[in-house]
């Protein structure tokens, strides 16, 4: 768990006739991260050519993504293919699948066309509605709000046989012909249109045989219905739009089974093609190489042999030799599932290099301890816990929200940490409901700590945070030494800023600082002690640059060295040594002091709660409760976020920078569940 999973490289030769079965098996096992075999420096291998595929992977991918796009519009997310899908898959005929999708697209487009037509009608009605809303309808007995109305309202009659002609003619303009009824083959209308279109509208009206009339008294009530008519028509059109939208969705839903079947088939074909793309072939044989966890070696070996009836040659190579550099090996995290949120925090920073320490198991306790120290409240912790569980439930089944799911999981962990630290410090929604198990944080901040308590002042809390920081930095240093030792980087092990000498200077500095603080005035620390603790490693550090210079000459020869030895080089070494020392002293000091923020945020958290309680005490009853609820909400949101970010920052900058370079490559095998 502390180190990344041990990996092994497979180099395989199989017969061409077995390659299909082998690729199916490799996909089914899903453990190999393929490497480019062309990168192996071997003349014989370079004679091999790429395996020709009768299908274009990019075309398959495009079709698969098209189906995904279609299905996503109706919230259907296809599940990853299963082994059964792999064995029962059919051959992919690109043209056939394209035809299916083009047909759906075509049908969808014809519905869209209808939607567009209706939308134009809606827009015209909205144009009229806006005018009515702004200026009124402008009927003779309805006073206009202003003279700016652009509506033209007129009543008239046309021969009933021209009704369609009239409506068709008006279709291009924002207008509303309201039928007032028929009388002796004459249809009566109240027509609302825009003044700007009056010229064109008048032409249409005269072609339809329009005769202006005064609104008959018995039809005067119609004007009140016009408003209703506009909104009714709008509603009808909107409802029709909704129906069309549903029709588009139904069109896809009705094809759901077929689409998913095609998707699965395409997906399997795509993954198999991706595997085959890593194969190289000669006339009869196929070769490939890739990485897998060592623990999977026997099973994969057995499966390959089974797939090709033992007609294969398998070679296994362990990393670490001269042929394979550690930075070429993919890295697989090796943590329990519950560490997933912390794995996310680590991989956001970078992937550890192969063979080095995976910081995840240490980030978990450190992050939670930092968070708990800054946000110690059992009540508020419960709220975080509930919010986290709710988030996890909401995002659990949505693959594209995997990040949110892990974030919610992290919130659950933070909630648990807050609860534990809340109990330790006796804080429950800012109230000391129970006796603290460790010390009374509120009491310390308000200056009412118990007599004789070990932590009784704000300064004590700060010192506690500093101790915590020193511990974190030392853990980081030790991890760096382990990493450098395991990767045989002996010079860095000694001379690196976070190497043995750097750590020696830091430890000596810490010892001296605490000795000075604790010693009585007049009791000075002996010079020998100071030299041994800090002076000696400082002097030894000076050897770094000369060592690099002479080892470079030794390895590349004097003629290849840019500068020949001269007294100025010693000055350069002195300068580099001074700068490095400055960096070490200022860096470690800043790193250590940075942990005071843990105390700072914890104190701020308590202070805020005290402030809200004081405000609540100034009122009574419901107002007091509201203030406390709002105060707690604000603290949970603001302080929670702040503590989360600060804990992350301390991990990234004070802890990781000591040992973690994040230059590794994540292990991403091709499997049925591949992204």
């Amino acid at each position: 768990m502390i180190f990344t999973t041990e990996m092994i490289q497979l180099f395989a030769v199989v017969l061409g006739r077995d390659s299909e079965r082998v690729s199916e098996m490799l996909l089914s096992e899903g453990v190999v991260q393929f490497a480019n075999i062309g990168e192996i420096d071997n003349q014989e291998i370079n004679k091999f050519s790429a395996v020709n595929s009768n299908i274009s992977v990019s075309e398959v991918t495009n079709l698969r993504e098209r189906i995904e796009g279609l299905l996503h519009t109706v919230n259907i997310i296809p599940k990853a293919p299963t082994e059964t899908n792999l064995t029962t898959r059919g051959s992919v005929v690109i043209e056939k699948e394209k035809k299916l999708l083009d047909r759906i697209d075509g049908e969808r487009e014809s519905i869209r066309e209808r939607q567009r037509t209706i939308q134009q009608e809606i827009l015209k009605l909205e144009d009229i509605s806006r005018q009515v809303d702004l200026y009124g309808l402008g009927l003779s007995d309805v006073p206009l709000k202003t003279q700016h109305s652009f509506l033209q309202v007129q009543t008239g009659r046309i021969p009933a046989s021209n009704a369609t002609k009239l409506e068709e003619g008006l279709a291009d303009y924002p207008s509303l012909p309201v039928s007032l009824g028929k009388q002796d083959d004459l249809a009566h209308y109240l027509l609302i249109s825009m003044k700007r279109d009056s010229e064109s509208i008048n032409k249409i009206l005269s072609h339809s045989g329009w005769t202006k009339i005064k609104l008959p008294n018995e039809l005067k009530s119609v004007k009140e219905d016009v408003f209703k008519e506009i909104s009714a028509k709008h509603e009808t059109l909107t409802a029709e739009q909704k129906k069309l939208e549903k029709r588009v969705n139904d069109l896809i839903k009705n094809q759901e089974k077929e689409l998913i079947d095609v998707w699965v088939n395409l997906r399997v074909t795509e993954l198999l093609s991706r595997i085959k793309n890593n194969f190289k072939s000669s006339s009869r044989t196929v070769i490939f190489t890739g990485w897998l966890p060592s623990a999977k070696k026997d099973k994969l070996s057995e499966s390959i042999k089974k797939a090709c009836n033992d007609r294969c040659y398998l070679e296994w190579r362990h990393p670490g030799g001269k042929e394979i550099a550690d930075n070429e090996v993919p890295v697989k995290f090796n943590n329990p599932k519950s560490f997933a949120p912390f794995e996310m925090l680590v991989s956001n920073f970078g992937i550890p290099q192969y063979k080095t320490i995976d910081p995840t198991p240490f980030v978990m306790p450190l992050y939670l301890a930092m968070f708990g120290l800054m946000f110690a409240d059992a009540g508020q912790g419960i709220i975080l816990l509930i919010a986290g569980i709710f988030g996890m439930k909401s995002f659990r089944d949505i693959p594209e929200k995997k990040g949110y799911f892990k974030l919610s999981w992290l919130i659950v962990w933070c909630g648990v940490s807050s609860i534990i630290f809340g109990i330790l410090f006796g804080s429950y929604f800012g109230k000391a409901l129970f006796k603290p198990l460790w010390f009374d944080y509120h009491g310390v901040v308000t200056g009412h700590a118990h007599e004789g308590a070990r932590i009784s002042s704000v300064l004590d809390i700060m010192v506690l945070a500093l101790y915590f920081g020193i511990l974190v930095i030392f853990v980081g240093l030790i991890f760096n030494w382990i990493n450098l030792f395991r990767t045989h980087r002996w010079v860095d092990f000694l001379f690196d800023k976070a190497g043995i000498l750097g750590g020696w200077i830091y430890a000596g500095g810490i010892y001296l600082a605490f000795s000075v603080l604790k010693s009585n005035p007049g009791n000075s620390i002996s010079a020998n002690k100071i030299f041994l603790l800090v002076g000696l490693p400082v002097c030894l550090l000076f050897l770094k640059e000369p060592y690099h210079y002479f080892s470079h000459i030794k390895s590349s020869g004097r003629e290849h060295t840019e500068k020949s030895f001269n007294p100025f080089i010693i000055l350069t070494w002195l300068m580099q040594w001074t700068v490095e020392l400055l960096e070490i002293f200022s860096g470690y000091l800043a790193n250590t002091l940075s942990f005071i923020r843990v105390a700072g945020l914890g104190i701020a958290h308590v202070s805020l709660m005290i402030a809200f309680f004081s405000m609540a005490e100034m009122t009574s009853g419901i107002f007091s409760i509201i203030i406390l609820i709002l105060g707690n909400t604000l603290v949970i949101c603001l302080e929670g976020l702040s503590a989360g970010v600060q804990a992350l920052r301390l991990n990234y900058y004070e802890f990781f920078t000591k040992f973690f370079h994040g230059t590794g490559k994540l292990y991403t095998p091709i499997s049925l569940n591949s992204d």
Partner: protein
Amino acid sequence: MAGALSKYAFINAKLRGRISKILADETFEKFAKAPSLDSVLDSLRDTDFVELQEIYSATGDLKKGELELLKKEIALYIDIKRYVHKDSIEFINALLYQFEIENLKNAIRIFFDRKIRNHPADPNIHYILYEPIIHNIPIDIIVNANNFDEISGVCIGTPYETIIKKYSETVISQGTLFRMEVAFDHFYYGNLIEAAKKLKHKDAEIVLRISGVEIDLQNIDWLIRLKNFYKMPLEAVLTMLIPGGFNLNKALVSELYKAQNVSGIIQNFVQGKYPGLTALLTSQTGDSQSRLLLIHRILEEIMKQEVKRILAGDPFNIGIILAYFILKRNELKKIRAILNAKQYNLSQQRIESML
């Protein structure tokens, strides 16, 4: 007096976060390959443009979606205004003028088509902004107006009143809005440069440089239109050009207008200031329009390089705001171009050439 750090630290962090969400070129290439408009919109579901897909699904109306994009873009400028230091607000306002001017131009075009050109009802009337952007201009009255007097009347108190009054007769007599639109653009860039000059020295320098490249692009666009479509003589073209260009001055434009060998003329400034672009100069061009389009392409590349320069340089100046606006505007432009191209079934190659 606020220092550069306190002025720009917050907005810099905020905008860099937003810049990381701008769609990558590969995404647009993928969109260009999509078989239909619907499939492009389907692909937008996981991006900031998801509402485009929602609007299109509900209405089938792409323009309505585009109008929402425009509203979003304006809201973006207004939003950024809230986060910038007060010294920069006037400059952001000057940038906001581009939307008001474009909206006003669209409204006047609708009026012009209907009243002067006697064209039938223009459906674009439904796709302009009726809400105020900077000035409270009643767009309703403009699209429904009977004459330019009514339009200039409702623009009283705005910088547009004089422009409309000055050019209304020319526009009617020439039967084109071109002169008036050019005047609007002159006002926009003039105002922008004035606002830029009020900024602190370093900020002003950056803004003038970037605005200068933008003016170059605008001028070259006009040069192409005026020379090839309007067959306008050089003297008339020169009067139309916006002053303040960064790479193209009047002398250079005159040479470009007359020249056969465009590459030779522009290689002086390209080689000196943008050596990475010299490869473009080797492109073989045929007719004069292609040559001018090549310059346009080079200017676009120059703009990209300027933006890169800003993003890689000192983070505490106004450059980050400008870079963000330019990148966002380009992103929206590409989205619009692809969606419209897909709606009109343009070929993949044609779409790719537009990006």
